[in-house]
């Protein structure tokens, strides 16, 4: 009985050959990704890289069209409910019910996640408190600022005490102060709970400040993976993360000749990975 679902030995996220197309548009073109328990992992890439599609497969909103995807040991296609029960998810768009108070918003999700009745009030209050919304909890969410909405969403996602938190562009559209406060909460959370976090972003600063490991995604494939330090070193002693980002994604914006080079590069990288995977399987 090795590797039972939900067993903490299994990685938090395991994708092999994940592929998803919308009609003719191949949004995710076969990615392999392993994220360990307790990691804060950043999926970096420009708009349209396939980050959100990946997140939506992980949170079971989209069924993977090809490949194996396990979240916390559960296959997303076979046991979507088991996956959802253990997930916290904050979508890219600021999304709350404006005709309810902050507390009611969180309490709603506590019910949808079957938080037991006797714990519910306490857990809702706790989640709001952790997100610094204790005082604003009984105000209508419609009057919240962008940063408060985002923190309210984090409270909604956390009330379930998830094992994995999926944050899709958590600070997009927020002012620097609100952004800092979201970062701070994520940091605190991670320290307090050791929860696995997968976030997508195209802010390098955010990736560097929060993430243990990063993957650079471009046009549906992963172009590079490693800790922020490793990625920078790979490019040169003075390289910044922004340089890394440009190196793996930037050429695509400039011209089609270079674009095709990029694709070849990807082929090479994938080739290595496939070989390595085969080796692991054999071993």
């Amino acid at each position: 009985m090795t590797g039972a679902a939900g067993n903490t030995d299994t990685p938090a996220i395991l994708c092999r050959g994940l592929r998803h197309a919308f009609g003719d548009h191949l949004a995710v073109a076969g990615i392999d990704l392993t994220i360990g328990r307790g990691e804060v992992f950043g999926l970096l890439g420009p708009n349209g890289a396939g980050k959100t599609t990946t997140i939506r497969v992980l949170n079971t909103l989209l069924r993977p069209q090809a490949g194996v995807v396990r979240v916390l040991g559960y296959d997303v296609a076979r046991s979507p409910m088991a996956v959802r029960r253990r997930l916290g998810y904050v979508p890219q768009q600021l999304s709350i019910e404006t005709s309810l108070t902050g507390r009611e918003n969180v309490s709603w999700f506590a019910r949808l996640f079957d938080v037991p009745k006797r714990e519910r009030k306490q857990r809702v209050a706790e989640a709001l408190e952790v997100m610094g919304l204790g005082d604003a909890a009984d105000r209508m969410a419609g009057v919240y600022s962008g940063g408060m909405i985002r923190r309210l969403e984090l409270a909604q996602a956390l009330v379930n005490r998830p094992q994995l938190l999926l944050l899709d562009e958590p600070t997009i559209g927020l002012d620097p102060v609100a952004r800092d406060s979201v970062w701070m909460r994520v940091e605190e959370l991670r320290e307090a709970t050791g929860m696995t976090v997968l976030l997508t972003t195209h802010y390098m600063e955010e990736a560097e400040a929060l993430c243990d490991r990063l993957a650079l995604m471009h046009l549906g494939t992963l172009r590079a993976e490693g800790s922020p330090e490793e990625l920078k070193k790979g490019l040169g002693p003075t390289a910044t993360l922004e340089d890394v980002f440009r190196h793996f994604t930037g050429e695509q914006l400039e011209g089609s000749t270079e674009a095709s080079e990029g694709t070849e590069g990807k082929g090479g990288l994938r080739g290595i990975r496939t070989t390595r995977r085969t080796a692991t399987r054999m071993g």
Partner: protein
Amino acid sequence: MGSALLDEQQPAWAEAITDEDRTWTELPVRVATFCLVELQKIRHDRTEILTRAVQPVLWLLIFGETFNKLHAIPTGHVPYLDFLAPGIIAQSGLFVAIFYGIQIIWERDAGVLTKLLATPTPRSALVLGKSFAAGIRAFTQVCVVLVLSAILGVALTSNPLGIIGSFAAVMLGAGFFSCLSMTVAGIVLKRDRLLGIGQMITMPLFFASNALYPVRVMPGWLQALAKVNPLSYEVDALRGMLIGTPTHLLTDFGVMVLALVIGVTVSSSLIMRLAR
């Protein structure tokens, strides 16, 4: 290690785990949650109770009183106002429900729907929860119409079972019509279009029913429409329970439950279109 994680065949324990997906208490618990949230929303916006009450009040006070005096519609020994009151109750439920799909489009546009769909809530439970929430919203109007009818001298039942039964009928009716609305929402995906279609179908649904006049005075083709219109069965049930006309409760509730089941099935199969 890698191979253990990637076995093509999922081992036996994995099958056992999926049982977790099939808890039978889930449906009623989720439905109750959506109803509760609806009540909270109503509590925060009490003006809506008043604005929504205007229309049924006008129907009863103006249309009802006038036709009551004209004796133009043959309703047997039942005064016309008594005949009309259950029809207006059903109609106010219909009006709330037929535009309820707008809420789900709004939730989609606001990103809330995506989050709801990522919670351990089966699609059917989400749809049924939403449709009963529409029923909850209709209740406030039902109360207004009941009170006004009593004031206007409609001989309403004093049997508490009759009142409870009427609320159940309103719930089922509003549930079905909000499923119809959510189905249209799942097809057109746009608020404006849903509004247009809602306006296009409400009045025909209302007129092609026994809400304003008995089926037997209708021309044949309209009778045929009224017979397949779930609103007719809702009105019939309400009339039977509230003002004591002959009842066909088994048929009425049977048709309403069947309609709701079909409605939930169809709209929950379309709801993922809204999640994209």
